[in-house]
């Protein structure tokens, strides 16, 4: 596909335009957020859900930021995203690059082209992080914690804003000993535009 390299270039261009924050500060802030959630909710499943919810709110905002920046840079998104394949490229090569400075890879498309995987070689969120291992027993509950689950929420929120309802899941995690991070994204439905209740009420 021709847009493969151009998406990466665009991502690079967007990244240079973004204001930068210290990566360590970022990782540590996220770490303390997760710790706080673990302390508050105790149940890792609930923590995952909360992280997803937080991510969703982030994603809903990110998408406007992304669209406005990308649009100004002269990259017409309307022409770029004709299929889910293109969308996946844009999310991984431009979105991840723009906000996190890392480039993600796309792959693992399903037969019906409705789901794909995003592979992250290095995960800026998990710098300095170690999850309690098996041998420590006791806290074995924490192994169900999806530390970077905020990504899932972000992707879900951002795509929801452009009318794609997706479900995301972290299937491989370097924190759990896998060799890379894999986020599985599954397209549930393409929402249609329509006048909502607010319009009818008004």
């Amino acid at each position, binding site marked *: 596909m021709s847009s493969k390299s151009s998406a990466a270039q665009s991502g690079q261009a967007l990244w240079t335009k973004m204001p930068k924050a210290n990566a360590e500060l970022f990782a540590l802030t996220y770490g303390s957020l997760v710790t706080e959630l673990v302390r508050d909710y105790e149940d890792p499943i609930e923590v995952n859900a909360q992280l997803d919810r937080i991510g969703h709110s982030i994603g809903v905002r990110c998408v406007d930021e992304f669209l406005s920046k990308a649009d100004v840079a002269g990259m017409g998104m309307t022409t770029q995203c004709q299929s889910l394949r293109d969308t996946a490229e844009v999310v991984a090569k431009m979105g991840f690059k723009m906000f996190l400075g890392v480039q993600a890879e796309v792959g693992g498309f399903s037969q019906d082209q409705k789901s794909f995987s995003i592979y992250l070689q290095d995960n800026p969120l998990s710098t300095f992080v170690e999850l309690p291992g098996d041998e420590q027993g006791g806290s074995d509950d924490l192994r169900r914690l999806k530390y970077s689950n905020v990504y899932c929420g972000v992707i879900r929120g951002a795509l929801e804003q452009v009318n794609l309802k997706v479900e995301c899941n972290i299937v491989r995690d370097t924190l759990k000993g896998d060799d890379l991070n894999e986020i599985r994204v599954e397209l549930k439905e393409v929402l249609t535009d329509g006048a909502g209740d607010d319009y009818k009420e*008004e």
Partner: protein
Amino acid sequence: MTVHALHIFDRKGKTLFTKRYTNSKSTPAQDAEQLSEQRKLIFGMLFSLRELMGSLTPEGETPALHSVKTGANTLHCYETLSGLRIALYTNNNPTMNAVGSRAGVENSRTSFQAALKHIYSEIWVECVVRSPLYRPRDIRVNEGEGMDVDGGEGRFDIRSTNFEQKLDAFLQSMPWFR
């Protein structure tokens, strides 16, 4: 004055922001009612026109609606992929339109499309989306003076950001504002 009003709608047709630049003679209450009727019609028209264009545009090309011109006024609109629609209601400005068509509307720095794009990316995103209080789908609409929607407690109010000031400053800096 060239600019009559500016409306911002979300995907569902909910009004997120509205401001009128020309004075009207009617009372504020009447005015608000009139404005809300007008907004409804504008959104309805934009929505239907887009549907129509979607079916008229040849495959592989992007349908895009830039403006709707009538005998007396022009409605300029800009739609983002996230479903935000910005509609700017102005009168027909012959000089501006001539300049725009000669210089190529897209490229002219002061063209309406460029201005609306600027409003979105530099003002809306900067002031509203980045506001920590911003909660999508939970925006309180200012319906003119003293016409707040009831039950707006705890909702995000655009007046708490400096969106309006920046917007005014930007519009006033445009050569076609007056």
